[in-house]
Each structure stands twice: as C-alpha cells, then as structure tokens.
C-alpha cells in the first residue's frame, strides 16, 4: 500500500440556518482546502463525498446533488455512507483511493445541512429505526442515548456530574475554534440543571443542530514529495459495523469502536496506544459518548475514562495525559453530522502540523487519532495521522 499525505484542509463556519445551500457549503470548504494545499481543482484526480441522511437536506441522491459544490463534475466521484460515522470515514475512503494506486490526489468533502429539516431533525431520526418493531413507538435518537447512557452509568457507577464535565471541557475548548457554534464557559451545575431531554440526557449534554461542511486534500507520497515541505501522513484507518439488532448487545461498551481502533492501530504499527497516541478527537455528540469512546479506543480501561476526566488527563493543556477533543468537539464546535467528523480529523491534522493556534496542545504530538460513530449505536470509524518521520 502506498503512503498517503494530507496537503490541506478547509472548514466553513458551523451554524444553525446557514443562508448557503448545501452545494455552497461544500464549495466553501473544498476551495479553502485547495487553497491551503496550493492546488486547483485541475490537480485533483478524484473526489469522495461524505454526508449523512438524505432526509436532512431533503434531497434524494444527495451525493449527486452536492456534486458540483464538492468539485466532482467531470471526475471519478463517489459518496460513502456509514451514518454518523461518515465524517471520519471519508478519510479511510480517500486513503484507499490513493493507497490502492488508482489515483494520486483526492479531495474529500463532508457536508450536512440539518436545519432544513422542519420542525426538527429528530423527526427524521425516527426513520432510522426498524419499520415494524421500533418506529411505531415514535422514538428518536435522544431516547436511544438515554438508554445507553443509563447503562454506562449504571455499569460503572458514574455520577451525572462527572459526565457533565465533558460538556464543560469541550464547550470551553471550542471558545478558541473559529468555526464554533455553541462554545462558552459553563458550570457543572448549569449543565446538569439544563432542560431534561430524555433523562439522564440534558440539553447542554447534547450537540446542537448544525449546518456546515469540511474538506481535506489527500495525495500520494510521490505527489506530496514533488510539492515539497513537511507533511502530515495518514498512518492507519479502521472501520467496523455491528449488528442492526442493537437491542441484543450490552450497551455499556462499544465493541465495534474497539475493532475499528485495533484495525487502525495494526496498520499504523501501534502496540501501546496509550503511549503512542498523543492527541485524540473521540466522537462526542453526547457528553457520555466521549468517555465511552475513549474506552473503546483502548485509551482508558473500561469504566475508567470518567476518573481520568476528573484528574484532568483529557484536558487540552495536559502534559502527562492525552488531550481529548481539543477542538471543542461536537458539544462545542457543533454537529453537522458528517462535517463534524471530518472537522475532528482536521483538528488532528492542525495539531500535528502546528496550525491549531490558540488550541495548540502543550505536549508535543507526533501522532493523533480521530474517531466517529453512528448508525444504530453500531459503527466505529477511526483514522490515525502522524507527523513526518
């Protein structure tokens, strides 16, 4: 397999009710990425798009609709899809376009425009459930997360206040992110006393409804070397999909995240992730999910991520721990589903290339990991990047 380098990245503002169409959001992110890579669309061999449910934009074959904005016209273009895991997954998909030897450059774009769903995207989420056994219950995503969060808290005896600290940390980190939608200084009290959505999920423990897009330019080693300079490299990718029958498994631990992570670690030659991963962007659409995923990623023992949180192990300015969600994550920057995942991958790229500005972590980072998750609490997607060695 050929090595794959990152040449540039771009992001739109994350916001509710953006005036731009989905196509325009894609164009804004894609052109920013091309500009940073110092390339034009003519240099791009192929385009990979990631976007989650068509129901959000309200467009059938949404990938075809977004094609012009993403730069796909006249090129090999494909849309990949693993629900909420899509945003990070576009990195593996772009990776194999190049690692296979099929292409030398690939523009990867992720978009979501959720605010077009009226009155609220949670309505569309009802249609993710089984038509016969679950949909008639009128359930949405908050309901399934309250079940999983309950199970996680109950299994390991985790207090609500500890989980709330994920929201405090991420919303604070996001104050330094230029794209952020819901950044701010909050207290644990404010988080736990915010409106109950589906107990124990509170409003401020939930990522918002967001519109936005993100993009990245990937290239083969040969192309990157010709371009010159030091690059960040994609060192490992992994993905894993569990059964659709989510009611049949223990929700306390995400096995599919573990399997996705192990696939990526193996490819990157990582045997001790707690020492070899220096910065991490785990998927945090809900506060508890960040902790849940850190355990699945093998960066903490089962049930121990909350204790490490209390100790400041995941803080951005830690020198002994592993900074987690230094971007501010979905809880702080916002959650345009697929774009949020790629935003996380871009944060790893920024941290490793020293472009994170005020968000730059204090410890020296050689290697970082971004992870996303989705479907019926079912899919894990992982990508690992490393600096020039």
């Amino acid at each position, binding site marked *: *397999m*050929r090595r794959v380098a990152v040449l540039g990245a771009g992001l739109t503002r994350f916001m509710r009710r953006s005036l731009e*169409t989905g196509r325009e959001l894609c164009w804004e992110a894609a052109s920013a990425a091309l500009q940073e890579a110092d390339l034009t669309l003519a240099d791009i061999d192929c385009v990979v798009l990631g976007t*989650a*449910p*068509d*129901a959000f934009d*309200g*467009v*059938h*074959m*949404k*990938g*075809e*609709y977004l*094609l*012009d904005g993403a730069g*796909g*016209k*006249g*090129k*090999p*273009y*494909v*849309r*990949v*899809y*693993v*629900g*909420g895991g899509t945003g990070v*997954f576009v990195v593996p*998909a772009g*990776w*194999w376009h190049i*690692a*296979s*030897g*099929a292409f030398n450059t690939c523009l990867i774009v992720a978009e979501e425009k959720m605010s077009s769903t009226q009155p609220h995207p949670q309505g569309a*989420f*009802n*249609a*993710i459930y089984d*038509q016969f056994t679950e949909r008639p219950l009128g359930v949405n995503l908050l309901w399934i997360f309250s079940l999983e969060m309950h199970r996680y808290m109950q299994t390991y005896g985790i207090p609500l206040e500890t989980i709330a600290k994920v929201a405090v940390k991420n919303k604070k980190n996001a104050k330094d992110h230029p794209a952020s939608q819901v950044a701010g200084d909050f207290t644990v009290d404010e988080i736990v006393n915010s409106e109950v959505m589906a107990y124990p999920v509170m409003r401020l423990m939930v990522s918002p409804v967001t519109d936005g897009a993100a993009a990245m330019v990937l290239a083969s080693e040969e192309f990157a070397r010709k371009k010159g300079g030091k690059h960040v490299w994609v060192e490992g*990718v*992994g*993905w*894993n*999909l*569990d*059964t*659709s*029958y989510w009611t049949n498994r223990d929700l306390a631990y995400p*096995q599919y995240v573990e*399997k*996705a992570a192990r*696939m990526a670690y193996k*490819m990157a030659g990582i045997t001790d992730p707690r020492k070899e991963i220096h910065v991490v962007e785990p998927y945090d659409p809900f506060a508890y999910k960040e902790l849940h995923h850190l355990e699945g990623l093998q960066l903490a023992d089962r049930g121990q991520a909350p204790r490490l949180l209390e100790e400041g192990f995941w803080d951005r300015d830690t020198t002994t721990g592993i900074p987690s969600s230094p971007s501010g994550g979905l809880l702080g920057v916002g959650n345009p589903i697929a774009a949020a995942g790629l935003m996380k991958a871009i944060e790893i790229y920024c941290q490793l290339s020293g472009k994170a500005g005020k968000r730059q972590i204090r410890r020296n980072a050689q290697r970082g990991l971004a992870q996303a998750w989705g*479907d*019926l609490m*079912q899919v894990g997607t992982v990508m690992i990047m490393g600096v020039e060695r």
Partner: protein
Amino acid sequence: MAERTAIVGAGYTPLRALSPQASFRELVFEAAVRAYQDAGITPADIDSVVALGEDYREGTCISDEYVPDQLGAVQKPVHTVTGDGVQGLGMAWMLLQSGVADIVVLEGHSKASNMRHPAHVEAMALDPVFVRPHAWNPLFVAGLEMQRFLHETGITSRQAAQVAVKNKGNALRNPIAAYPGHITVEQVLTSQPLADPLTELAVAPPADGAFVFVVANAAGCKRCRGQPVYIEGIAWNSDTSNLATRDWTRATYIEKAAARAYEMAALQNPVADLSFVEADDAYTYKELQHLEALQLVPKGRTGQWLHDGHFDLGGKLPINPSGGALGCGNLHDASALRAILEAVWQLRGQAGARQIPNARRGLVCSWRGIPTATGGVAILSGR
C-alpha cells in the same frame, strides 16, 4: 502495476416485479448464500463489505444500518456507497489493491415494489429550489435527453424502439429476467406516451432482486474455490445532476470512464477485444447513447449497426445478452450488478441458452438513472 483481482463468487435472486414473500434482507440473504457457496467461502472468510443503497428508495433514514446481519458480516469493516454496481466494484477493487482486505463482498439490491409512488421519490432528486417546485414527473428529464439524442445523432424513434424489441427478446433466454417478451417496434411506438418521445415500452419497468459478489485479490483467490472472472479495467465518472449546467448532447461520464478503463485494461481494439457489452438501458435511447460514448461503433453508425443486427445475440458485438434493464427490470443502482452477473456467467460459460461462444472479455457500462449523469465502465475477462 496493479495486482490481479477477480470476482470469485456470484449470487442472486430471480428478478421479479413483486416480492411480497421476502423482505429485502431475506432477498440479500438468499443471494449471499449462493455467492458464498459459489466462492467456496464462509462468512468468517470475509475481510470487508461494500454495500449499495439510497435512503429514499429504502424508505429508511441511514439505511446502511441494515446491511451486516444478512451477509454474515457483523462486526466487520462494512460500508455503504450511494452509487451503482460499478462504483461499488470500484471500491472493492481499491480495498483489495490497497491490501487492507483480501476478500471483499459486494452487495446490492432493489426492493422497488416497496415504493408506492416511485415518481415522487425520483422527484426528490431534482434541485429543490429551481426544478422541483414545477412538480413535473421526473421522467421529463429522460424525454428531453432522448429528444436531444435523436437530434444529435439522426437516430430515429423507430430505431430506438428496436432496442426494446432486442432486449426483451434476449430476456426470453434468461431465467432470472422479470420482463421478457416478444414485442414489435410498432408496439413500442404505439404504447402509452410518457414523456415524448418516450413511450411505456421504451422504459424499463422496476423490479425486485438482490445480488452478492465475492471479490478477491491474489492472496484471497487462494482461499476461494470459485471460477475467477478478472477485473481488467474499472472506472467511474460524473457529470452534474444539475439540469441547467450539464452536457445534454452526450454521455460524457461514460466517455471519460471508458477512456480510463480501456487504458487500464490496455485494450487496443475494443470491438475486436470484447465478446459482448452490457450497457445500461433504463430507457431505449440510453443503450445507444452509452454505446456512442463507449466509442465502440464508428461515429454515426450506431443506428445502422442496430438495424443490421450487429448487436443481437450472434451478432458482431452482442449488446445486453441478458436482456438488459428493459428485459430483466430496472433495479436502479443494482442494475449494474445484474449486468456484472451476466458478464460472470458469459465468461464462465454458464449463460445457458444465451451463451456467446468463446466469450473471453466483456464490458459493463452503468448509469445511476435520472437526474444523474453518473456511471461507470468495468472490463471483465475470463482468463
């Protein structure tokens, strides 16, 4: 130089207008069992899965959730592509070339009969601001394109109708086809007008069915028993689905994909090198438009070749020996998998009554349907 990759297992369900006896998951299970038996593998041998799906057609938001169980692929690297069978095969090919997997399963299905009002679904693919508010039946896109195609090439409606006669006739020899039949050009031309010049019999009617393939690289092939059909060339390309800015005169997506696939397969003289072509024929004119884009027929001679029977079974260059979408049914993105299945059967010598003698190499050309301008080309070889 790319490593040799091959399709080593093929599974299917018969294609039918209705399939009330089975859910789509049960259809896929049936196809998967056939494919794994054909390849001589068990689900434990699968390294990765590529599935095809579009939410609106499935009637499920995030429809990729429902992929793994019926394939025996729970807790494996599984992903979905909202693309056609050639794009899916392209993803499998790249996974194998990159070495991240040695055996990949490719799945696609159609449960079109679940769509009570397919036109309403297709209309949701039109631009929501500029086009959809007109509330036209989306078939108008194909009608407009056919008008332009006939104008550009001088091919007549009568000649285009011959495609339906040929394909439905071929389908009579295909046991899995949903819409075989003896029809005449007159019947096609006088069937109900839909979007002029398209008539009812010039449009492939929807069908249900499922396909599963096992694809492997050299290391994977050693673990399989199925007779290999090699992927010599594979490419896909898109023009925009935006009606205002696309190229209406030709299928540029196939021109570009074909150029890449021919180069990859190192074909010097495609007509002589190909034993047959399975080209998307969701509408009669599409088969001819795609043939022009494939540049297999001397420019301006497509209509004449059709009239002279060169595209018939037994002709110089048989097109859609399976019966195509007009004869087998329109399976949307899975139509290309139906075409790939035919190529596998022809190249293995398993095509029964419609076997092309000494079929050595075949070409599959796909299209994602209105309003898209996305498609692909795969060149497959029996040795």
